């Protein structure tokens, strides 16, 4: 799948950060939508079913891990990359347990981010094929 066809959703309450990141991704030909809190993120996921969601753990309102939990319940094929501002691996491990694809620490390296998104999409595709086969049987 071409990077242009990726559907990416960026979720963080740090608007400056998330919009700038979205702009940089678009400059690389990756379309990205943004949401600034958990609720609007859940709405956007329900409406558009993105391939990958970049999700900040620490947000006001619905917390990142809760968003992750709900997404995995409603849209299990959506891959989530968690973002943490602090170095605690505990949130990361907890996130992985809840079904996140991977987690990254701020500040980000954009190339690493893109690599991870790509592998997440690959993984999602395989998972979808596997799910399709299972459904077909």
């Amino acid at each position, binding site marked *: 799948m071409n990077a242009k066809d990726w559907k990416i959703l960026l979720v963080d309450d*740090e608007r*400056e*950060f998330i919009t*700038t*990141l979205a*702009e*940089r991704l678009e*400059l*690389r030909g990756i379309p990205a939508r943004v949401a600034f809190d958990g609720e609007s993120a859940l709405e956007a996921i329900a409406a558009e079913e993105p391939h990958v969601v970049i999700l900040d753990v620490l947000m006001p309102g619905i917390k990142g891990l809760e968003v992750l939990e709900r997404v995995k319940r409603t849209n299990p094929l959506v891959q989530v990359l968690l973002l943490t*501002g*602090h*170095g*605690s*691996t*505990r949130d990361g491990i907890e996130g992985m347990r809840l079904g996140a694809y991977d987690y990254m*620490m*701020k*500040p*980000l390296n*954009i190339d690493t981010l893109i690599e991870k998104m790509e592998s997440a999409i690959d993984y999602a595709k395989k998972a979808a094929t596997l799910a399709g086969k299972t459904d077909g049987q």
Partner: protein
Amino acid sequence: MIKLADIIKHPLRGLQSDVDEAESPVRYTLLRQKIFALMAVATLIPLLAMAVLNYYEHKTTMAREIQNPLRVLVNKTKNSFELFLTERSSTVSLIASAYTYPELADEKKLSRIFSVMKKEFKGFVDLGLIDENGTQVNYVGPYALKGKNYAEQRWFQEVRIKGKYVSDVFMGFRKFPHVIVAVQHMTEDGRTWILRATLDTHQFERIIASMSLEPDADAFLVNSQGIMQTSSSNYGKVLEKMTFALPPQTYEPAVLTMVDPLGRDVYVSYAYFPDADFALIAVKPQGSVLKTWYTVRGDLLFIFALGVVAVFVAAYRVTDVLIGRMKESEERREMALRQVEHSQKLSSIGRLAAGVAHEINNPLAIINEKAGLMKDIMAREEDFPAKAKIDAQVESILRSVERCRGITHRMLGFARRMDVSIEDLDVGEIIKETAGFLSNEAMHRKVDVRLEVDPELPRIFSDRSQLQQVFLNLFNNALAAVADGGRIVAMARDAGENVEIIVRDNGCGMSDDTLKHIFEPFFTTKKGKGTGLGLSITYGIIKRLGGDIAVESEQGVGTTLTITLPKGQREALA
């Protein structure tokens, strides 16, 4: 000085009050003195009481033991004397009653009676019949005393009054010490006559000799005027005046102590005769009989002195041990407190660091994205005069962000209470692996890195990644400390229940002042290059893994860090 009375009155108060207020080591000295004094007093008082009691008990027992035989002996001898005198006077009395005056006046008959008397009873010297006028009308004996008149003599008066008489020892007409036994008899017609026998005092000497006294002891008869009735070796010859005063009169045998005229301490045992004017006196010097007592007293004193010495030695030793234990436990408590303080300091600093790092990471992420965007935009722009310069500035911003990121991540790493994951691992292997990370730099700087890992080193239960971090820290520090061409030695060996890892360098070493602070967070000697978190993280990890870390360093010589890790798995680690 501690007052004895005070200690006895308030033994425990003394231990508590002023001791607590004092500062150590004065406090320990005070405490030591008090405990020692208390123990010594508490043990010495009963010991002393026992010794004194024992001393007097023993002394009185000994005195009784010595005096009793003396008393018994005197009593026995007195009885012998009395028996001797009673027998003789009874014999005379019997003869006086059995025969009539004419029979006794018959020379032949009297001679026959006397010979029978002498045969049956030893000690009779002569026998005489005296008429009421005091004239000896008949006499049998070795002297020519027939016809002698005794009317004027005292014994004649006495026998006339009492009817029976035993005289003191006296010389009389014969110039030889003798005793008279005289009995008065009255016929039916009212005539009186006296039968008189003389006794040889040699018999007295014989009775005294039968007492079997020691050579320095003495026994003799004395009359109520203090005139010696038998000879004594120390207190006068027969019929001389006794050289010391008569003891008070008693018919029961008594013992008293006194100093005799020869200056000796003596026991005087004596008894007065109820029927004769005699007293039997036995004198025994105390010196000889008390010899046993002196030995016992010496033994007693020796044992007491030994006891006192033992009490002092024991009290000293016990006090020493006690104080040592107290000191030790206090030191241990202080150490534990210091450790708790240190880890509390670490954890509060850790929380602060985590907060700061987190707060900084968000704006840092924005700076990173903004500068990244600038770089992205610049890459799509045509060349313009300031482009290269602006590119350089953006790169510089990104590098600075990267540096900040490193710092915040390290701070977070310090704060992190990572879940320890315990596995069975080979410490030697981890050391080799970690040293490998630094081999490039070491080679470049010609630093000789030697690994001396005991091939028999047992595997231990610990956390691999945390140990890696520890060794990396230590190697980094060692590498920073040594000059180019220096040497780093890492050793790992079995140390009983632990495994010991030693990292030694011949670098610049540390001052004592630096040594005190090296495990504190944010303390660094790498001006500007270090965060000061390395060794405090190491310290935290080692403690979490149940181990310990020690450092020795000498400026200009080098530094040795020793880590001990427990071999076994510890529940507390998880």
